[in-house]
């Protein structure tokens, strides 16, 4: 599997049948292609809808009033429903969303996340990210292990402005799965062919290495 495919494949295995899940824009939406047999999840989109299924396919007629969290037209499945943004964030903040899946610029060993701004470079704004990360029951970060220059993104302490404090539960990369516990980041699983040494060398955070480490696939 290609890097991003592996990450999506593994992340999709965090979901249970019937879960209500918010998937961030970009790589997180790829999870839908890798759901295990028998696992049917419902997508909560923060703009006020449950049950989005993706852009209209050829031959399907979209409704410009049905858009996803990036503003693109999407189809809705039977059984979905719509509500206003206030209600939507009530669901999110109230812990009614089983998992939120997002990318990150940086994550640290205390479960802090930075994914909304790089001072002097981006001024997009945080959108719903801060609410999603503070509110969802489980926060899953899916990202490439290092940045495009090969520098670690998993740090002892985030250097960028934070999105939320102590909220990250799992980090899924092309190298490994890390769980954030009260004791620190635990190396739970490795990708096929990846060694503990490789993960440690590409991670700037302290890692807890248990005796038994699982495999991502």
């Amino acid at each position, binding site marked *: 599997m290609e890097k991003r495919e592996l990450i999506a494949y593994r992340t999709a295995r965090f979901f249970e049948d019937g879960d209500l899940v918010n998937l961030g824009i970009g790589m997180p939406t790829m999870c839908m292609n890798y759901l295990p047999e028998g696992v049917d999840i419902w997508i909560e989109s923060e703009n006020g809808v449950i049950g989005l299924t993706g852009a209209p396919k050829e031959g399907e007629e979209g409704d410009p009033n049905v858009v996803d969290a990036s503003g693109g037209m999407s189809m809705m499945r039977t059984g979905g429903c719509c509500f206003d943004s206030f209600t939507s964030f009530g669901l999110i903040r109230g812990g009614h969303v089983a998992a939120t899946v997002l990318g990150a610029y940086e994550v640290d060993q205390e479960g802090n996340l930075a994914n909304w701004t790089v001072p002097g470079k981006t001024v997009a*704004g945080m959108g719903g990210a801060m609410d999603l990360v503070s509110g969802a029951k489980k926060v899953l970060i899916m990202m490439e292990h290092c940045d495009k220059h090969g520098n670690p993104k998993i740090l002892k302490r985030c250097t960028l402005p934070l999105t939320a404090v102590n909220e990250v539960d799992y980090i899924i990369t092309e190298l490994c799965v890390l769980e954030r516990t009260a004791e620190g980041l635990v190396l739970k699983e490795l990708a096929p062919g990846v060694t503990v040494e490789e993960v440690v060398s590409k991670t700037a955070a302290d890692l807890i290495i248990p005796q038994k480490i699982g495999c991502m696939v």
Partner: protein
Amino acid sequence: MPKNKVVSLDEAMGKLRDGLTVLIPGFVNCGVPETLIKGIIEKGYTDLSVISNNTSIKGRGIGMLVHENRIKHITCSHIGNNTETVEKVVAGEINVTFVPQGTLCERVRAGGAGIGGILTPTGLGTPIAEGKPVIEVDGKKYLLEKPLHGDVALIHAWKADKMGNLVYRRTARNFNQIFATAADLVIVEAEQIVEVGELDPDVIHTPGCLVDMIVQI
């Protein structure tokens, strides 16, 4: 509540003036009151303070106000979908205050519902927390976020009866429902205007008592 609140775009826009605080709903460019925005542009109003979730996309919706330099300050959660807004913010032509999307909903709802403030975990420990009181309730910390209120709200409805009872369509509802509660003057553009009595009392999203004027798109 007069029986018929339907007016011309020109008459509705005649109630505005330079420098107002305007609530404008919409998610990216879905559910944005584009006809009313064009009305603002035609009337030449400027120096507006806008409260919105984002600024649509370049050249569309709220993006028209950006392009025509009518916005002095914007309170929103995200501008990343509109490159022109980003440029003008970077150039210092528009002041921006970022508010997390769920907090934006809560603050406007508080403004419309006579709530003096709300305590949210969103943004704790992030740059959003700067200058805001942190209040502890039963051992958990929260940010105190204050109400937002507008001089005018511009609303996009799918159906309006002539008294102003409104129904929104799918994800075009987004911020419309809450924004309609929190301004001194509420102007609605409607895709369809129907007779009083045609909307079932249980499917009305916004009671007519909140609406001052209705414009046919």
